[in-house]
C-alpha cells in the first residue's frame, strides 16, 4: 500500500464503529454446533453416513458457486451458508440414500430453493428442508417411506441396542434389495408410525435409548442429548433466539399431553407419550436447526414465537391426523411461507401506548395540600 493510500480520509454516515460479527462467523458457529451430530451419525450409521455428509456439502458448495458464476453474481461461497445447507441436508437424510439422490437434493436445495429466490437471505423456504421434501416426494421408498408397510416392521429398531447394525451390508446393497423390514429400522418414522397405529409401548429404557440416540433415524436427528448440547451452545453464543424452538417444542408437548390425557384418561399415563413425542422423529433437530434459520423465519421476537407455536401445532396435527407419521418437515415449510407475514407482529415501539401516556404525579398537588394544612393550623 502506498503512503498516499494510507493517508486517505474516508467519509461515511455514522456509526463508524462495528461489532465485527460477520455472516461467515455465524455460519461457522452453526457448523461447529452441527459437528457432534455429524460425528455421532458416522459412529452410529458408519462410513455411508460420512460419505452422505461429504457429498452433500461438496455438491451444495459447488452448485452454489456454479449458479453464481452462471448468473454473473459474485461468488460468495466463503460465507459458508452453502456449507451449512449441505450439512443440514445430509443430517436429515437416511444413511441408506443413494449418493446420486444426495447430489440431486443438494442441487434442488441451493439452486431452486435458494438461488432462484435471490440467494442468501432472500429465500422463502428453508433450503435443506426443501431439498429433503423434494427427495421425499420424488423417491418415497428410498427416503424411508416405510409407513406404507407398517405391519411388517415390528420393533426392528431395538437391534441398535445390541450395538450391531448391518450397516456394511446396507451400504453395499442397492436400495431396491433392502427389505421393507430393514427399511423400518433405518427410517425415523417407525416409532412414530407405531405410536400412530397404537402399537407402540413406551418404557423407561426406551426413552433413555431415544434420549441418548441409540436408535434409527436420519443421520443427525437421533441423539437428543447431543442436539440439546448444540442448542445450548448456539444459545449462549447468541447465534440463535430461544423463542421459536421453545414455542415449537412446548406446543408439541402441550398438544400431545392434552390429546394423550383425553385418550388415556390419566395424566401419569399421558406423560410417557409426551416424552416420546419429543424424543422421537426430527422434532428436536428441527427445533434447534431449522426454525432458527435466519432467512426463512421471522425477524421479530413475537413473530418468532408465533412461528414456533405454529410449527409445533402443525407438527402435532400431521403426526396425529395427517397422512405421514412425521410432520416436522412440512410444518416448518408451511410456516416458512407465513414468515413474511409474521414479521408484522412487532414489539411495542418506544413512545407508544401506556408507558408514554401515564399520568405524572403532580408536584403542585403536594404544595396545595401543604398550604391547606397550614391554613387549618392557623384557624385553630
Amino acid at each position, binding site marked *: 500500500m502506498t503512503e498516499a493510500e494510507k493517508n486517505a480520509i474516508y467519509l461515511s454516515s455514522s*456509526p463508524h464503529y462495528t461489532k465485527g460479527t460477520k455472516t461467515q462467523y455465524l455460519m461457522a458457529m452453526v457448523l461447529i454446533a452441527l459437528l457432534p451430530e455429524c460425528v455421532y451419525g458416522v459412529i452410529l450409521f458408519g462410513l455411508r453416513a460420512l460419505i452422505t455428509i461429504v457429498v452433500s456439502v461438496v455438491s451444495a458448495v459447488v452448485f452454489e458457486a456454479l449458479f453464481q458464476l452462471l448468473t454473473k453474481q459474485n461468488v460468495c461461497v466463503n*460465507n459458508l451458508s452453502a456449507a451449512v445447507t449441505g450439512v443440514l441436508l445430509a443430517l436429515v437424510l437416511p444413511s441408506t440414500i443413494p449418493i446420486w439422490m444426495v447430489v440431486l437434493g443438494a442441487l434442488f436445495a441451493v439452486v431452486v430453493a435458494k438461488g432462484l429466490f435471490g440467494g442468501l437471505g432472500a429465500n422463502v423456504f428453508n433450503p435443506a428442508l426443501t431439498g429433503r421434501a423434494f427427495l421425499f416426494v420424488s423417491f418415497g421408498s428410498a427416503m424411508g417411506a416405510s409407513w406404507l408397510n407398517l405391519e411388517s416392521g415390528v420393533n426392528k429398531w431395538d437391534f441398535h441396542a445390541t450395538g450391531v447394525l448391518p450397516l456394511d451390508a446396507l451400504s453395499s446393497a442397492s436400495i431396491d434389495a433392502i427389505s421393507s423390514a430393514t427399511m423400518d429400522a433405518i427410517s425415523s418414522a417407525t416409532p412414530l408410525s407405531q405410536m400412530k397405529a397404537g402399537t407402540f409401548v413406551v418404557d423407561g429404557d426406551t426413552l433413555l435409548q431415544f434420549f441418548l440416540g441409540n436408535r434409527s433415524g436420519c443421520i443427525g436427528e437421533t441423539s437428543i442429548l447431543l442436539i440439546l448440547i448444540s442448542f445450548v451452545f448456539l444459545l449462549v453464543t447468541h447465534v440463535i433466539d430461544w423463542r421459536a424452538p421453545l414455542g415449537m417444542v412446548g406446543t408439541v408437548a402441550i398438544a400431545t399431553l392434552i390429546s394423550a390425557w383425553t385418550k388415556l384418561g390419566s395424566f401419569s399415563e399421558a406423560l410417557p407419550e409426551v416424552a416420546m413425542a419429543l424424543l422421537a422423529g426430527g422434532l428436536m433437530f428441527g427445533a434447534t436447526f431449522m426454525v432458527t434459520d435466519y432467512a426463512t423465519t*421471522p*425477524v421479530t421476537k413475537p413473530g418468532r414465537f408465533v412461528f414456533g407455536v405454529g410449527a409445533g401445532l402443525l407438527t402435532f396435527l400431521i403426526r396425529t391426523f395427517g397422512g405421514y407419521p412425521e410432520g416436522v418437515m412440512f410444518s416448518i415449510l408451511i410456516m416458512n411461507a407465513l414468515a413474511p407475514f409474521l414479521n408484522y407482529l412487532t414489539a411495542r415501539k418506544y413512545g*407508544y401506548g401506556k*408507558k408514554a*401516556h401515564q399520568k*405524572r404525579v403532580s408536584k403542585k398537588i403536594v404544595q396545595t395540600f401543604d398550604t391547606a394544612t397550614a391554613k387549618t393550623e392557623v384557624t385553630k
Partner: protein
Amino acid sequence: MKIHTFKGGIFPPERKELSRDCPITDAFPSTKMVTIPVTQGGAPNTPLVKVGDVVAKGQKIAASDKFMSAPVHASIAGTVRKIQNNMVTGNGEALCIVIESDGSDRTDYMPPLDPFTCDEKDAIARIKDAGIVGMGGAQFPTHVKMSPPPDKEIDYVLLNAAECEPYLTVDERTLQEDTAKVIDGLAIVLRIMGAEGKIALETNKAYIKPLLEKEIAAKGYGDDMCVELIKSKYPQGCEKNIVDALLGREIPSGGLPADAGALIMNVGTVCAISDAFRLGKPLIERALTISGGACEKPCNLRVPIGTMVGDLIPEVFTLKRGETSKIISGGPMMGFAMTNAMFPITKGTSGITFMTRSETYLVDETPCIGCGRCVEACPMHLTPVMMVRSLKANNFDEAKKFGLMDCIECGCCSYVCPANVRLVQRFRLGKSVIRQQMADKKAAEAAKAAVATSAAPANQNGGTK
C-alpha cells in the same frame, strides 16, 4: 443501590482509558484566529459586526430576533477579519465570522446575576443572552427548553452525565474538576424550573458519585437533587432512554422530554449556565475530548468557540503519521465524518475522534440474512430490518409503520449487523424523502387552494381549447 437501565442497546468498546486521566487543559489556536459560525443552534442569526470591527471577548456578534434562537459571542478579543462561508460539522458550508486575536484579554461580559433572587423571566432571558445551547451535540437553545408550554409541567431535571459515546471523556473530567460549578448550574436550573434534580451517572463513572454527593451535601441541596447510577450501555445518554431508565416514563412519539415531565441537561450546559449567572460570561469556550487511535496523545482541552481543529495541530496535539482513516466530529457512534480537520469547534462539539483503519470499518454491504440482531439492539424497540426492506421496496408507509420516523439514528443496528448493512444511512435518506414528500404535498395543496380562488376564469379558457 439500584442501577437503572432500559431495554435494548449495545456494549461497544468504550476506549475511554485513552483520555480519561488527562485533565482538561486550556488551548489556543496557533494562528490566533477563530472562525465562529454565525448560527449555532436555533433559527438563523445575522451578523451584528462587519469586517474591520474591533470586538471584545464576550461581545455579541450575531443574533436573531426570533425566540427560537441563540446569539453568538466573540470568543476572543481582536479584529473581525472576514465574514465568509466555511466548512462546518456535517460537511456543509455555513457563514462564519473570522476574528484575529490582538493578544489582549479585553472582555465585554454581562453583569453577574443572582439566580436565586432574580425573577424567573430575567433568568430565562439571561440564559438566552448568554447564547447557551445544548452542548451534547444537538445545540438546541436551552432557554426554549426551559420555557415549556403552560400545560406541560416539568417535575424532574435530569443531568445527563451518562456520556455513553465511546472515546469521549470530557463530561467525566468536568464532573471531577468543576464539581462545584456543575452542582451550582444544576441548582440554578432546578430553581428556575421548580423541579427535582437527578444526576444520571453511568456505572463506569461510579467513582465520581461520592465526589458529587459530598458537594451536594456541602451546599445543602440534599432534598433537591440526588445521584443515580445507570448501566454503562449505549445509548444510555439518549434523552428518551434516560427518561425511561430513571423515571419509568416514555417520551411520546414525536414529543419532547417535557411531554414526560422531564428536562435533560448536558454537563457542559449546566457549567455554562453557572458561568452566565455568576460571572456574566456568555458561552464562548467549551471543553472537548481529542481522542482516537490515530491521535498521538489523546487529551481533554478547553478552547475558544470557533477554534479550527487544524489550528491545534501540531502545537496542542499530534497525529500518528499516515494512520488516520476517519476524522470524526463527535464520537464514533453518532459523529460526523469530515473530509479534513479545517472545521471550527462549535458549542455542540463534544469531541474529535481520529480513527485508524482498524478501529473503524470500511467494508462493503453483504446481503441481509434476517438474523434479527438489529431488532434486539434497537433502543426504540423498532424493527430496523423491516424498515430497510420497506425502503428498498419504496414502501414508505410500511417503513413508517415499522418505526422509521421514530428512529433516533443512534447506530446500534448498524453496529451489530453481521452483513454491515448501512441501516442508519438508509433511514436518514428515507426520512429526508418522507419529509420532502410531506413538504411537497403541503406546497401542492397551498398552490391548489391559491389557484382555486384566483384563477378560475383562466381554467375555463384552457378547457375550451
